[in-house]
């Protein structure tokens, strides 16, 4: 594996880790991954707050 391949791979892994981290963080904050975000929802995050409370 040459240096450039190694560096590109590291960047790619970092991106993947960041995305996973962000998804977990969003889940904890009660944000959803649905196509419309919560500000477009008639219930505006209240459903996810409830879910968060249930989780704890």
């Amino acid at each position: 594996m040459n240096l450039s391949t190694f560096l590109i791979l590291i960047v790619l892994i970092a991106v993947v880790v960041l995305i996973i981290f962000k998804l977990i963080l969003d889940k904890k904050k009660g944000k959803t991954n649905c196509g419309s975000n919560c500000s477009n929802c008639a219930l505006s995050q209240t459903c996810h707050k409830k879910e968060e409370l249930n989780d704890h």
Partner: protein
Amino acid sequence: MNIRVALAGNPNSGKTTLFNTLTGSNQFVGNWPGVTVERKTGKLRKHDDVEIVDLPGIYSLSPYTLEEVVARKFLIDEKPEVILNIIDGTNIERNLYLTTQLLELGIPLVLAINMADIVEKNGDIIKLEDLEKELNCPIVEISALKGSGIDEVTNKAIKLANLNQKPNKIFSQDINNILKDFENYLTDIPENEKYWYSIKLFERDEEVLKKLNLNQNQIDEIEEKLSALEDEYDDDTESIITDQRYDFIGKVLNNTYKKQNKGELTLSDKIDRVVTNRWLALPIFALVMFCVYFISVTTVGSWCTDFVNDGVFGDGFFFFGTGREAYEIALEDYDLAQTGIEAFDVAAQDQGLDPASAKTLVTSADLYDEEGNVEEIIPVTYQDYIDYLKVEEPDPSNYGLFIPGVPVLLQNWLESVHCAQWLQSLILDGIVAGVGAVLGFVPQIFVLFFLLAFLESCGYMARVAFVMDRIFRKFGLSGKSFIPMLIGTGCGVPGIMASRTIENERDRRMTIITTTFIPCSAKLPIIALIAGALLGGAWWVAPSAYLIGAFAIVTSGIILKKTKMFAGNPAPFVMELPAYHWPTLSTLFHSMWERGWSFIKKAGTIILLATILIWFLSNFGFENGHFGLVDMDNSILAGIGSLFSFIFIPLGWGTWQATVATITGLIAKENVVGTFGVLFGGFDEVSENGWQIWSNMQAFFTPISAFSFLIFNLLCAPCFAAIGAIRREMNSAKWTWFAIIYQCVFAYIISFIIYQIGSWFFGTGNVIGTIVALILLGLFVYLLFRSESREKPIENKIDLEIG
């Protein structure tokens, strides 16, 4: 000290629009009632100590609907410092009904008369000073949409916060005397709240009675007084209160309000005569939805998507198109030359000749059209062959300012830094192909959202809910079920959540089960892919997807209502139709951007991760006992897909690729397209109907199996996020499983029938399959038309008193 300003008012009076203006937030605004179900909070701009609470729209403070419960609970239990009551100036009489109740709470109130611009345009006159005196509260005329009067109303609200407010007493003397008596039972209630509680005792409000915890003697005394009054008025106490409120409003408005065109039909009324007409309403709605999908998927959206696929995620594009025409002519000449060379080489090889010296050889070359059909046959002589060899591949940069596409730029860069071949494949064939395939549909998504936002904002969708109530009712569903479905066109999750407003549990469950049949934005790329790449860009595919969703809802409604589990009359649905208005461009673009941006974010997160996983699983596997890079057909993904693919053979697409795409669609529906992007490597323009793509895909799909695939993926279980929403709203694992299994079985049967019967039109019909399909069709028709469940349905009985 913090000030909480409660925004209260009737449904669709403009509360959320005002809330967004006051707080600078982007809460969803829809021009139909019931957009806000739960309360929302935000800080007032430039006032960190002022919190604005947007309450759901209500008509009264009775605890009958979820919205009323939420709003009343906040106003009574959490006692905001001030109420900002927003009323629709074009419908002042009915809106003041709630105002009279809010003024009894003992909380300072500012009245904001919204849509003042329309009131003025209609020539109506509101004498503000007189109205202020009559209602004993400050009044400001505003336009939440245009932003006028906003500063004045907020300043007045802040100034009024925490001041003592005496409740307005509007009832007749005898009733006020009784209310005064009742205040004696309210020893623990603060002085300024006693009046409201006494009215609730008068109305026999069960929630309040429970909360006050009165002893039996007190309850008997109250009941005795109320019964005596009811005999005197020959009416129940709730109706007496309602009558007196409207009497008061009538008297107040006689002196303070002058309507210019009393009794005349407004423009909205005239439009409604057509669009809600008994016979025309449904064809008009079908036509409107056809236009929406035709424009967004087949025409405008498709042109934009082609640009993104060919340009941004393809080879590249010419800046403002300059030079493209000349380049395309040169490219055509080059393609012709290559076809001629290939044909001459093959012919020479067949005759055992060296093409460079086959001077007497004459052959022919087939030229294909965009759909892969032979368009023309041209002769190729030796001289032509020599001439063709001189034709060089045109370099687009010689014809104008050419901007290479993302894959080209990335590939050039990766090659220049000597990146390993497998990593290049992961980035280009995995991530760029997969994510690019999904992002290619962004323009279509944006056009669709823009058009839907227009229909919502102008007021048409509220009419559709009204029209749908009439139709849904016949099929056992309430018009209330339409609002979740409307929201579900954006995303199934909020659509399912919005079903909370349906009080009847059976109706709510049925709405949850059927809401995701309507294609959400994530399913649009699947529709566009199948329509564009597999069905020759047929104009009818996208509108038919929407209609099939509606068909699935209606037929499911009929079938389920006839079972014991769902039997019963649908819940009543009351709504008012807002006046039509032209939405502002900023509102439309804002709504479009909010929803579209979520789609883009999803492509950059979940879809990206999924494409990496799919690339890995489709390129790695065991071969000759060793794990490593393998041919795609021997990959782990092929193994997983092959395990389940037999299930889909009767639907016409029992390949591991299609099976895997369907399974990955459970993560997010866009993944179906992303997976195809990865699996059919070299796809750089999945939505275009180029014949090369067609020939790539026809190994896996026929037109009818492609349509069957589309139908199954539209109707089967939704993505995990939506399944989670179903689980939360059903609050039962049993019902969640029922919903998922019902959706999958329904999708399977419909796709099976379509494929098996449809195959006869393509000359590939199967006798046994068709017999089974006909039996299933018969069973389906039987379930639709059989008599109702024997269990006596729950009925909403209304006692009528005559005389």
